[in-house]
């Protein structure tokens, strides 16, 4: 039996990056789906809770949650390993005149900072939503949390960090996987920008409830209803 191909993945520079890139892209896909779900909350209590109930009635959900956890752990573990190695191998003394040669972007230069911001954000998110008391219903839990200034700040920062992380990470992952071609790379880069921009909608949702747009909307609707009845 030949197991060398398995051992090579975590123990080679390219193998580690392939694990990171594939887990990162799957996480990005999850984030897009999750964003779609979250946008339902703007449609109101019954739409959102209806979806959550339907979702949780799927018997495969616990298994999928474990899968998601594994993706996160793989990505975080190999991301930090890669960066630890890079830190170890980086130049011992920096250049006196230190400047970018033109390849770096804000996204690429801040990968490690956005990574730690995302890690904190994820832990916060899990404590307050995943392992919280769900008895009042998901809609109530989420919208009430978003009335809090601190909570919303965390969400806005988290969404911005995610957008920045993916502004580099999305196209970077394709390059890592060897998917690089003058025909497709511009399309991949453009898609990356769109995906990053979409992540800002996570922040929009929390601000929407913080600013009380839902209440205003309800008020308007009631007024329209009243005039119709009159």
């Amino acid at each position: 039996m030949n197991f060398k191909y398995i051992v090579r993945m975590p123990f080679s520079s390219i193998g580690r990056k392939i694990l990171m890139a594939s887990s990162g892209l799957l996480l990005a896909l999850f984030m897009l789906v999750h964003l779609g779900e979250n946008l339902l909350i703007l449609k109101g209590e019954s739409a959102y809770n209806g979806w959550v109930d339907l979702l949780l009635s799927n018997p495969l959900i616990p298994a999928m949650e474990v899968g998601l956890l594994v993706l996160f752990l793989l990505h975080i573990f190999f991301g930090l390993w890669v960066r630890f190695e890079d830190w170890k191998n980086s130049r011992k003394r920096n250049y006196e005149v230190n400047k970018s040669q033109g390849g770096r972007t804000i996204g690429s230069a801040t990968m490690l900072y956005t990574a730690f911001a995302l890690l904190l954000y994820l832990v916060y998110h899990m404590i307050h939503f995943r392992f919280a008391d769900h008895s009042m219903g998901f809609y109530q839990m989420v919208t009430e949390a978003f009335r809090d200034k601190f909570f919303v700040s965390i969400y806005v920062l988290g969404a911005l960090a995610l957008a920045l992380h993916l502004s580099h990470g999305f196209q970077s992952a394709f390059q890592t996987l060897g998917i690089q071609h003058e025909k497709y790379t511009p399309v991949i880069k453009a898609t990356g920008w769109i995906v990053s921009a979409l992540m800002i909608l996570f922040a929009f949702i929390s601000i929407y409830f913080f600013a009380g747009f839902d209440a205003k909307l309800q008020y308007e609707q009631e007024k329209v209803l009243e005039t119709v009845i009159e």
Partner: protein
Amino acid sequence: MEKKTFGITLRVWKQEQGEQTGHFEIYKIDGLTGDISFLEMLDILNEKLLKEGREPIAVESDCREGICGCCGLVINGDVHGPDEHSTVCQLHMRRFKDKDVITIEPFRAAPFPPIKDLVIDRSAMDSIIKAGGYISVNTGSAPDANSIPIEKAQAEKAMDFAACIGCGACVAACPNSAAMLFTGAKIAQLSLLPQGNPERNIRVLNMVKAMDSLGFGNCSNEYECEAVCPKEIRISAIAKMNREFIKANFASEQ
């Protein structure tokens, strides 16, 4: 007609052999013209220093025509100087003006230990090539022309990757000291040619292993290497290497 001359101030990294660190030394030099090269300017300075009984600056160069790859320096923070996709030996003083202060540093990367002043030890790159950057199967005597047909476009692509001169600028520019562009160029070149085919799987695995064990970093796709490479090797070389790695790891006997 008398040519207009100008003077500059240099801040040059000085480091004694065997020392862990060094310092910046300030030199003033006058009487320069725009049509001498940067290395000639350093020659003039070194001669002047010798005449004054001071120690000249240790700096490496050989071909002075942009093909040997040993003249790498970081000038005012630019790897290989301010000209894009060029070597230091191709840089001319017309790029600078009177009273400029120019900071000159050696390439810095963990796998490139300093030797003296601006000279570094780049032999780790040779070790990567030794791990498989060649063809070792016996290919017999020179075949007749056109007996191994290679499509023109394919041959051109291989040549583009073969243009790498092993200067190490990609490593010096990389925040992770990665040698992916250099290694990728060699792997891409050989994998595009029929002569490289028999050993392509073992080659990529061995060269990547050597690269890792010599202390070169991982690739974060910062693309700084592509921006400085004097031979305009593109990051498609790295993508190609990664594809070769995936193929060799999952789809070969290795």
